[in-house]
């Protein structure tokens, strides 16, 4: 006890005594946390050490060197399935093909399931009894059967279709549904597309300035300066000109080419230095900002434990980053250099002489030797594997999206649609102009979740042999036993996808929230 009471009743202090450690709450609070942290790190360290011993006992030390080796694996489909002289199919490129396949089916799946989901969700609230019943049967059936079962069922159903011949169809030559897959006519990006787009963008810059000044004048002087009309007209003219004149932009090819070689010639040490400086500088800046936020007119506010923790955490995290960059993974810098210059190389390839000028083109399905021609200028073809994964994912996910949409619409108070009706809007107009925009805000977060789910569920392609990232990765580690490395690639890839989707959703949400004010 730190005080006693004297005769007059006033407390007399005998000075502060520090409580013993086992009773000191602030010491205990941090002690417990640090003990747990150390225990967690120790467990990880033990496991990693164990894995390393077990793996080297089998003669397969963990490394990433194999990424540049030739793959020699069979890829079902993708942007590159065969090994050619000028374009080697290395392990890393095989994994890249898998990632592109994943992204391809995920992005199209997201779009299609959203469209179906919105339609079904609205039908569930229809005035028509049959519409409500049919859509609720759709939702309840599809969402209560596991998506994997649905995917495999689709594969079984599609596999039982007729053989692929020159005159299979529903509409021979145009729409083909067969054992080997489904093919439709499609529009695709042709040779001149990137030149076309860059030309339009360049030409739009002056137009944009004119538009701004027109708008200003309208604001100042009133009347109508036809800013939008002017912009649209200019756009149309530019598009027509660029359609034919886009080879002019071919000069961009060499420019990107030189950026490629400049980027590629950055020495590794410099890149390491830059990355380290960025990490440390970020930490320093963050701490300065933080301290500024704690500054009051009467000087710096008293910092509590948590404030100190944040600053220490920032320092430790940046030091760790430096350690990883310099010691832990020296290959990271060269990877950044190489992939950066690869990226510019790919862009440079899109421009140049000898290209046709047409930005887009359309084609019907083409067959060769009783198979679909999958890539290049041909119809839009889904292999059975792609199709079964696609149908399974899209129908399953759309049933959840329908429920989300329905919930969102119901969350808009009935007063809103009544008010819209009172203003004389029709039911459809009220839905489009009043209810849906408000429902959008409620719907966005769970919708983002569904988009994440569909992206992650593409990994079920492994059950039907669709060459997405997990399936390709499995083929790779079955070949070279680099399981740990492949799993780390899975993790980084999917976390990147999740982060992208959730940050897009968050941004949209923030926009909507600002609009509200």
């Amino acid at each position: 006890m730190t005080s006693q009471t004297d005769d007059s009743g006033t407390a007399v202090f005998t000075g502060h005594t520090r409580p013993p450690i086992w009773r000191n709450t602030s010491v205990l609070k941090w002690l417990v946390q640090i003990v747990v942290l150390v225990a967690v790190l120790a467990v990880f360290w033990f496991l990693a050490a164990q894995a390393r011993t077990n793996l080297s006992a089998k003669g397969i030390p963990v490394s990433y060197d194999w990424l540049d080796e030739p793959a020699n694996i069979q890829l079902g489909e993708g942007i590159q399935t065969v090994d050619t002289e000028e374009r080697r199919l290395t392990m890393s490129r095989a994994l890249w093909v898998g990632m592109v396949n994943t992204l391809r089916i995920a992005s199209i799946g997201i779009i299609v399931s959203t469209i179906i989901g919105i339609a079904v969700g609205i039908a569930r609230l229809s005035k028509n009894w049959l519409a409500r019943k049919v859509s609720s049967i759709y939702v309840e059936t599809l969402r209560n059967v596991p998506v994997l079962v649905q995917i495999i069922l689709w594969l079984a159903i599609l596999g039982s279709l007729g053989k692929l011949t020159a005159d299979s169809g529903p509409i021979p030559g145009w729409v083909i549904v067969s054992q080997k897959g489904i093919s439709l006519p499609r529009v695709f990006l042709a040779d001149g597309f990137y030149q076309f787009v860059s030309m339009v963008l360049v030409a739009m810059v002056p137009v944009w300035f004119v538009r701004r000044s027109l708008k200003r004048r309208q604001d100042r002087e009133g009347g109508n300066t036809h800013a939008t009309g002017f912009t649209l007209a200019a756009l149309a003219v530019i598009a027509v000109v660029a359609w034919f004149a886009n080879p002019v932009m071919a000069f961009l090819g060499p420019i990107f080419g030189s950026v490629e070689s400049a980027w590629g010639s950055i020495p590794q040490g410099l890149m390491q230095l830059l990355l380290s400086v960025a990490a440390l500088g970020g930490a320093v800046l963050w701490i300065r900002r933080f301290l500024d936020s704690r500054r009051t007119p009467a000087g710096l506010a008293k910092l509590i434990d948590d404030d100190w923790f944040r600053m220490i955490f920032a320092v430790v995290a940046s030091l760790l980053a430096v350690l990883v960059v310099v010691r832990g993974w020296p290959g990271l810098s060269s990877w950044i250099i190489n992939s950066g210059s690869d990226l510019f190389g790919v862009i440079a390839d899109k421009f140049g002489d000898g290209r046709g000028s047409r930005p887009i083109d359309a084609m019907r399905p083409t067959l060769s030797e009783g198979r679909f021609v999958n890539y290049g200028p041909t119809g839009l073809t889904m292999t059975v594997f792609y199709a079964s994964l696609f149908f399974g994912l899209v129908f399953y996910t759309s049933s959840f999206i329908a429920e989300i949409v329905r919930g969102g619409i119901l969350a808009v108070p009935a007063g809103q649609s009544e008010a819209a009706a009172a203003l004389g809007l029709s039911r459809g107009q009220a839905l489009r102009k009043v209810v849906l925009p408000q429902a959008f805000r409620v719907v966005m977060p769970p919708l983002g979740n569904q988009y994440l789910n569909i992206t992650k569920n593409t990994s079920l392609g492994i059950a039907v042999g669709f060459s997405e990232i997990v399936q390709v990765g499995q083929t790779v580690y079955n070949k070279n036993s680099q399981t740990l490395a492949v799993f780390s690639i899975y993790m980084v890839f999917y976390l990147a996808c999740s982060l992208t989707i959730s940050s897009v959703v968050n941004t949209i949400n923030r926009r909507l929230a600002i609009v509200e004010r």
Partner: protein
Amino acid sequence: MSIADQALTEEMASRRDMIVCRGVKKWFGDFQALAGVDVTVKDREVMVVLGPSGSGKSTLIRCINRLEVHQEGEIVVDGVEMSNDMRNIEKIRSEVGMVFQQFNLFPHLTVLDNITLAPIWVRKRARVEAEAKAMELLERVGIPEQANKFPGQLSGGQQQRVAIARSLAMEPKIMLFDEPTSALDPEMISEVLDVMKDLARGGMTMMVVTHEMGFAREVADRLVFMESGDVVEVGTPEHFFTNPREERTKLFLSQIL
């Protein structure tokens, strides 16, 4: 005589210090909520805290049982210093009862369980004993027949009386009230104030944040006026209501009276 001990009668001054705050400072991030508060509450004293919204009344009262942690200065409760010592915190918490504006009854427990929970698990009383005591307290606040209902089934005034009984069940030496009647409909305010007056008459040491000037005039031994995290004026009710010294106090009282 320090600012904390202003306006004490001879008799009062000779009593024991129950709550002593000296130079208490508290920041929320970069916002200073308490800027060096000095207050002393004597044994069996009823002290009413006044002040405009955001002046730090709740923060002060919450620092006294460590719902907020003060960052500078000292708080001593019944001779025990508020520090990081777990034993001191336990001791102070079990000696200080608190009643909230929003009642904060536990909605998943019956009234009886609400009252007996702490005596059983903190004071380690036998359940039978704790229940007998709880029924006695419910008699005292006038709602013994509600013992087996859930808080959601009671009126606001009844809930607040249960909350007072719940605090009293721990047999505290000090009771803190943070605007206990502000969330109540007018017709229920008096039933809660009556219970509080009873308590004061029974000799409980109380620190009360309230805007009920009638209560302050009738029951308070001293009043404290706070503004911007600082104590502006301390005095007896007559002093406050007849001729306050500070301009700010005058202005505030003229607005609410």
